[in-house]
C-alpha cells in the first residue's frame, strides 16, 4: 500500500486500465505532455505513447463526438473535459448521443466511455471553474454518475466505471484532489462497486448524505453535532446515479431525519431528487422535513466562494434544526 492523493490514485487507475486493455485510450485538452492541468494524466503519454494519449484541439464537442465514434468502433475512450464548467459545448453529444445510443439503436450500438472531469469549488475558480453539473446528467436517462471522495475509492470506482457496460461521467472533486490522501495499492487492480454507498460514520439521530469534497464538511459538522449530543449517520454516496437507495432508506428508517449536502445550486439539484425519493420510500418514518444544505441559487462567486459553499458551518445548524424538529 502506498499513501497517495486523489490525483495520483486516478493516474494509477488509468495506468492499470491501459496496461490491461489496449482498447483504452485517453483524449482531451492538454492531457499529453503536460499531463492535464491537474496532472491526472501525467506520464501516460510516455508509457502508452501518442497513439493512445491524445492532446486534442480545443473542442469539447469534438472530444466527446469522436469518443462516441471510437466507442462505436469498440475502443473504450476516456475523454477528459478540462473543467466540468466546459462540458457544455459537448452537451448535445452527451445528452442526445452518449446517453441515448444503446436505446435508440435497439441495443445494437453502445457508446461506452468514461468521461472524466474535475468538479466543484475550492480552488478560487469563480463561475467557470467551480460548478457541479451532476443534476443535468442525472436528469438525462442513460448515464451513470460517479463522484469519489478519497483516493482509494477514486481508483476503485474508476476501474469499476471503466468495466461497467454503460457510459459513466466520472466527477473528480478538485477541492480534495491533493488534500485527501489514503492508502492505495499501487499498480494493482481492484474495483469499488458502482451504486453502493458507504456509511462513513454510523449514527442514530440524523442521516447526513453527501459526496465528493463536501463529505468532509458533512463529517466535520457531524463531529461538532456530536458535541451537542446529536449522533449523525453520514453516508458517502460515491455513485450518484443510479443511487444506492437501500442504504439511504435504511438509514432514514432508523433516524427519521435527513440533511442532504451538495455544492450545486439548490433548485432542481440532486438534493431535490434525494428528498423526493426519501418521501416516496420512507414517508412514514420522517420526523422532520428532509433538509438541503447546498450552493445558493446564484452563479458560483469568486471572492465569496466560502460563503457560497455548504461548508460545515452551514451544515451544523441544519443538523441541529432537523434534530430538534
Amino acid at each position, binding site marked *: 500500500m502506498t499513501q497517495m492523493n486523489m490525483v495520483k490514485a486516478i493516474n494509477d487507475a488509468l495506468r492499470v486500465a491501459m496496461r490491461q486493455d489496449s482498447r483504452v485510450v485517453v483524449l482531451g485538452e492538454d492531457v499529453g505532455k503536460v499531463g492535464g492541468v491537474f496532472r491526472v494524466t501525467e506520464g501516460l503519454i510516455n508509457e502508452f505513447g501518442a497513439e493512445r494519449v491524445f492532446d486534442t484541439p480545443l473542442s469539447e464537442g469534438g472530444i466527446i*463526438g*469522436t469518443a462516441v*465514434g471510437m466507442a462505436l468502433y469498440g475502443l473504450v475512450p476516456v475523454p477528459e473535459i478540462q473543467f466540468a464548467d466546459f462540458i457544455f459545448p459537448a452537451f448535445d453529444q452527451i445528452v442526445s448521443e452518449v446517453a441515448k445510443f444503446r436505446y435508440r439503436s435497439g441495443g*445494437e450500438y453502445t457508446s461506452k466511455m468514461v468521461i472524466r472531469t474535475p468538479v466543484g469549488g475550492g480552488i478560487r475558480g469563480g463561475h467557470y471553474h467551480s460548478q457541479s453539473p451532476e443534476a443535468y446528467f442525472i436528469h438525462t436517462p442513460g448515464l451513470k454518475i460517479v463522484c469519489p471522495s478519497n483516493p482509494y475509492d477514486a481508483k476503485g470506482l474508476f476501474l469499476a466505471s471503466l468495466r461497467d457496460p*454503460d457510459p459513466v461521467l466520472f466527477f473528480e472533486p478538485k477541492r480534495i484532489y491533493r488534500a485527501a490522501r489514503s492508502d492505495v495499492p499501487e499498480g494493482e487492480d481492484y474495483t469499488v462497486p458502482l451504486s453502493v454507498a458507504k456509511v462513513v460514520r454510523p449514527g442514530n439521530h440524523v442521516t447526513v448524505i453527501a459526496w465528493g469534497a463536501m463529505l468532509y464538511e458533512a463529517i466535520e459538522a457531524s463531529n461538532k453535532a456530536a458535541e451537542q449530543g446529536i449522533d449523525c449517520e453520514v453516508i458517502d454516496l460515491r455513485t450518484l446515479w443510479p443511487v444506492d437507495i437501500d442504504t439511504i432508506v435504511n438509514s432514514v428508517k432508523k433516524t427519521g431525519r435527513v440533511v442532504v449536502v451538495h455544492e450545486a445550486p439548490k433548485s432542481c439539484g440532486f438534493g431535490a431528487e434525494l428528498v423526493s425519493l426519501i418521501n416516496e420510500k420512507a414517508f412514514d418514518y420522517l420526523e422532520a422535513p428532509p433538509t438541503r444544505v447546498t450552493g445558493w441559487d446564484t452563479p458560483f462567486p469568486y471572492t465569496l466562494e466560502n460563503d457560497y459553499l455548504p461548508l460545515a458551518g452551514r451544515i451544523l445548524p441544519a443538523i441541529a434544526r432537523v434534530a430538534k424538529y
Partner: protein
Amino acid sequence: MSGPEFVLGDVVKVLEPDSTVHPDNDPGLSPERCVALYEHMVMTRVLDERLVTLQRQGRIGFHIGSMGEEATVIGTAAALDETDWLFPCYREFGALLLRGMPLQSYMDNMYGNGNDPVKGRQMPDHYSAKPYRFGSVSSPIGTQITQAVGFAWAAKLRGEKLAAIVYFGEGATSSNEFHCGANFAGVYKTPTVLICRNNGWAISVPAEKQSASETFAQKAFAYGLVPMRVDGNDLLAVYKATRDALALARAGKPVLLECLTHRLSGHSTSDDPTRYRGQEEMAAERAQDPLPRMRAYLEKKGLWSEQKQQAFIAKVDAEVKLAVEAAEKAPAPVLDTMFDDVFEQRPWHLREQYEESLHAPRAQGHGGH
C-alpha cells in the same frame, strides 16, 4: 512572404445530358453493375412515393425521402468496399438497402412495430444497422459527423484498413458538429470522406442564406481537408468521385465531397415547399432528375427499355406491398421494451417504473397504425 493559394478543382462530371460519357472520368462500371445501380435508384424512388402515400393515408407517421438525390446517395454508397462503414444523415435509406438491410426490416422501422430493429423507439426513417456497417440515424443535425471521424480514427489506430463515409446536408455545415468533425479529421488524418449532400435547401432556408462561402467544398481549406465537388445528379460521376475520395482518405487525406443535387420534394412529409418555392424553379430542377439521365444512358447502350422499367416497377411494387402488409400485421412493441436498453441492465428505479407501468391502464392510440 505570401500565404498559400488554393484552387478548387472542377466539378466532376461523367454523363452528359446527351448520354455521352466523359472518358477521363468514366469509372468503368460493368453493364450489370450500371443496371443494378439504376434499378436501385428506381426502387428507392418507388418506395419514396409509396411511403408518402402511406403517410398521407395516416398509416405511417412520417417519411423523409431522397427524391432527386438518389444518384448522390446510391453512387456514394456503391463506391464503398465491403469493409468500409457508412454513417447516415436521414435520407440514406437507399444506401441502407444497398448495404443489405432487408426491405422488410426497413418497413418495420417505418411502422415502429414490434419487429422494428430499433424496437419502435425512434421516428420512422431513424434506423440503425450495425450488421451492415451502417450507423444510427439521429435527428439532431450533425452529430454523426464527429462520430464517423472518431470511428475512422479508431480503426486507423487499430491498424484496420477501412474508411468511413458520413452524410449530411449543406445546412448541417453550419452545425457545431461539422466544425468539430472536419477539424478532428484534418488533425488526425482520419480515413473519412465527409459527404455534403448540397440539395440547395435546409427545410425552407436556401443554401445562399446558410453560408456566405462560395461553395461548400471550399470549407475544406479551413481544416486541411481535400475539397471535391461532383455533379450529384450523375450516378457515374458520384461513384467515380467517391472512389477517388476514398482512395485519398485511405492515404491519410480526408475529403470534403460536395454533391450538387436537388431535393425534388418537400423536406419531409411534414413540409409544404410551395410556401417558399416557385413552380418554375422546381420544374427546372425536375429536369435534372438523376433517374431519366441514367436511364437514357442505359437505353442508349441497349441495357434498358420501357418494358424493363415497367416490369421492374411492378416487381418493386409487389415487394413493397408485401412488406407493408407484414409490417401492418406485426404487433406493436411490448411495454417491456420501453424500459430496456436505457442501461445494459435495468437498475432499481427502472425496475420499479416498469412495475408501475404494468399497473397503469394502457393508454389509447398505440401501435403506430
